[in-house]
């Protein structure tokens, strides 16, 4: 039975960063910001954690730095979108480019070599396990926060009907700003998991499109924390299956493409009527 056990473990290992990123997508979209910069936030989180662990020799400080860096990238998106009227989609694309270039640039500056960093002190097996458990805890906390607190009500309302939020005397732009920071922090943590949890280094392209798979998980999970977590687990299982089927003749590209193809299918409404928050991606102006 160890085969099944291995598969479950591998699924969890592959799903954890997707869960963090998908939760980041959920909180942003529920507040009305379509965050297509998840990939960039994963990248910056992963790189910063390694760079800071390298500089301080302490992976926990690296972890915190990765989370803060992710939050700052989220803040950049939030400020651009809510304060300067920059379109969210365009800003997200820019941030992805900026993050990839920034991390590649940072590699050369900090480690003096392109491609990959040196090995640094990482979080190890207990850290990796802790972060996997943490992903599910984060899903639970986000669920409670979104549906059981005044903050959650304000956040969801900003994504559905920002004018109503404004009428209640709250500026939806601030609500969205906080959501993008929280989302950035979550995605940053997903990046930390990749670089300091699963491995002990950063290499260019290590996020490998997970930020976009997470966007698909958000749609599949119908914009809820539990739903997105479930979808991320499903995509994690697909990634694990890829290892199992490695020598079976099933093209690995097909397996890799499945989450994206599933997202395209979801856009046709094939999976039932999945409705995005009414004001998702719609800029709010006074």
């Amino acid at each position, binding site marked *: 039975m160890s085969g099944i056990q291995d598969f479950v473990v591998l699924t969890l290992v592959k799903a954890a960063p997707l869960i963090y990123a998908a939760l980041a997508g959920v909180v942003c979209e529920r507040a009305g910001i379509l965050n297509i910069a998840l990939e960039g936030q994963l990248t910056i989180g992963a790189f910063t954690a390694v760079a800071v662990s390298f500089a301080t020799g302490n992976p926990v400080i690296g972890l915190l730095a990765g989370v803060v860096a992710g939050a700052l990238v989220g803040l950049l998106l939030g400020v651009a979108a809510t304060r300067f009227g920059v379109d969210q989609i365009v800003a997200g694309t820019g941030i992805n480019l*900026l993050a990839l270039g920034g991390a590649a640039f940072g590699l050369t500056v900090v480690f003096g070599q392109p491609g990959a960093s040196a090995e640094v002190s990482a979080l190890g097996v207990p850290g990796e396990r802790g972060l996997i458990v943490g992903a599910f805890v984060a899903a639970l906390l986000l669920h409670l926060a979104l549906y059981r607190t005044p903050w959650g009500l304000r956040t969801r309302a900003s994504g559905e009907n920002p004018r109503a939020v404004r009428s209640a005397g709250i500026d939806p732009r601030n609500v969205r700003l906080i959501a993008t920071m929280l989302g950035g922090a979550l995605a940053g943590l997903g990046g930390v998991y990749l670089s300091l949890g699963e491995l002990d280094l950063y290499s260019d392209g290590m996020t490998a499109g997970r930020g976009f798979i997470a966007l*698909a998980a958000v749609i599949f999970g119908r914009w809820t924390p539990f739903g997105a977590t479930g979808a991320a687990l499903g995509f994690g299982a697909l990634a694990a299956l890829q290892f199992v089927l490695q020598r079976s003749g099933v093209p690995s590209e097909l397996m890799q493409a499945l989450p994206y193809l599933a997202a395209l299918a979801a856009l046709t409404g094939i999976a039932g009527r999945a409705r995005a928050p009414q004001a998702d*991606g719609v800029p709010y102006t006074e």
Partner: protein
Amino acid sequence: MIRGLAIGLALALFAAAAMLLAGANPLLGFWALFRGALGGVPQISETLVQTTALLFPSLAVAFAFRAGLFNIGAEGQLVIGGLVAGVIGARLETSGLIAIPLLLIAGSAGGAAWGAIAGVLRARFGGSEVIATLMLNIVAALLANYLVVGPLHSPGVAGPETAELPHSSWLPALLPGTRLTVALLIALALAFVLRWVFARTVFGYELRAVGDAPEAARRAGINLAKTAFVTMALSGAMAGLGGATIVTGVLHRFNVSLSPGYGFIAIAVALVGDLDPLRIIIASFAFGILQSGALSMQALAHVPKDVVSFVEGLAIVALAARRFVAGRKQMTALAPE
């Protein structure tokens, strides 16, 4: 104009700060950048090669933006266009007079088909073209890799690429001994045609109407769904044509890494060019300088070339002003028919 200069200056300062951080002399960095891009005939022609590669997807992006549609998928459409041209081209032994137009048309058709997927999802199901094109970018890369390594593998080729195209299928060079080909002229012609379409044709008018005020356009009897579909397909065709010119003009084969992100940089180029086809020509040249100067900057001034994508990303964030997207907000708010 003044705003543009201010943003340009701010970006240059950012780049200078980054160079200092890398322990390089910014003045040397900029000197190396411009020398590498404009220092002589070979450098300038290489810059024009990059300009051409950027111009096609930038026009594609701008075309869709004008209709209120966010084509984030020029990258994938370009890859598919190149893939189709490369796969057919490597197997085609015929006169250049037939082969070259055929390959360019096939590449455009491939890009159009890829763009049309997002178009159908938008027009028929009201699905977000942003999500669709994002996903299609990755699927395009995976599909290309699968096909050229797997079922369409060319004998004797080791890497993820097709065999070389026969010489007769190569685009004619503009300057002998350089990689600059007639693709530049095709791209320039496309820009002028688009300018004419926007300014002088009913279709161009409808397109802009849908982009600027979809609800008013709908009431005026313009079919929004059809416009969305046609726009995405044509936008994809332009990006696909760009991919086909890289294959037939620059690499002479399809390689999975034929684009260092032209389709994404194109978004910055389109915005810098104010979505105006003629100004996009100038913007493509400016970004072409960055692309072709980056390697020289790395070699001569020891500035990592990635500083260029960093600055391009910043440029996109800084330049995406609200006015480009007035129409999109309403377009997305409309329920699918």
